[in-house]
């Protein structure tokens, strides 16, 4: 375990506002998972990929983890420590958060796979066209 993580988790009183890194340590999440559970766009993407009857199993815009003070996209985000403490003991929320993170990762992988496949098809088409042109050029027409 990182000494900084141990030092932070051992604090008798955590500061009132937590940085993203500290929330990751407290909730045992990765940076990517934290990004998903705080983002309305990512959560909506996951919800829209599910049939309506399964959407209650993942987070929603209402139950997402909200950073303090309406930060801009690039700003460092802070979270209320007392809310994180509550969520640590909320098994239902943790279950939904993990599920949302996993489903988002799966969607991302599928999208990348799709893109690769699409790129392969495009390259194949391009090769055929180029090949065809060379063939035409080769005939001297």
């Amino acid at each position, binding site marked *: 375990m990182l000494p900084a993580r141990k*030092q932070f988790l051992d604090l008798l009183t955590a500061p009132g506002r937590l940085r993203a890194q500290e929330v990751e340590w407290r909730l045992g999440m990765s940076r990517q998972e934290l990004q998903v559970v705080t983002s309305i766009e990512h959560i909506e993407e996951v919800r829209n990929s599910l049939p309506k009857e399964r959407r209650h199993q993942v987070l929603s815009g209402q139950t997402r983890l909200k950073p303090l*003070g309406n930060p801009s996209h690039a700003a460092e985000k*802070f979270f209320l420590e007392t809310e994180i403490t509550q969520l640590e003991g909320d098994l239902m929320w943790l279950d939904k958060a993990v599920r949302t993170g996993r489903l988002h990762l799966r969607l991302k992988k599928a999208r990348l796979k799709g893109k690769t496949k699409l790129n392969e098809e495009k390259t194949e088409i391009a090769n055929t066209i180029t090949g065809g042109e060379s063939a035409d050029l080769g005939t001297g027409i």
Partner: protein
Amino acid sequence: MELESERIAFLNLGRFPAVFSVEEAGWFFQFHPDAIGWLVAAGHLPALGTVSLADDHKRFARDVLVQLRSDREWMDRATAIVYSHRKTDSKQANDA
């Protein structure tokens, strides 16, 4: 690094003092000491006694800070004040 170990030692106290300094209030909320001054100037954080805004020796009541620490609305507004200060500061630096 010394400041970091002081911060950790403070947050590991079994019992906090009744009155906090600017630095201790910063550690307690995880705000930069400058931000504590901005919050006082904005009338968002009550300091003890009569203090001038330029006074670096502002003091804060522990019990008030403990209450504010878990107040989502207060913390939202405080964080927004700090963001807007940072924005103004960086804009001024760019303009200069």
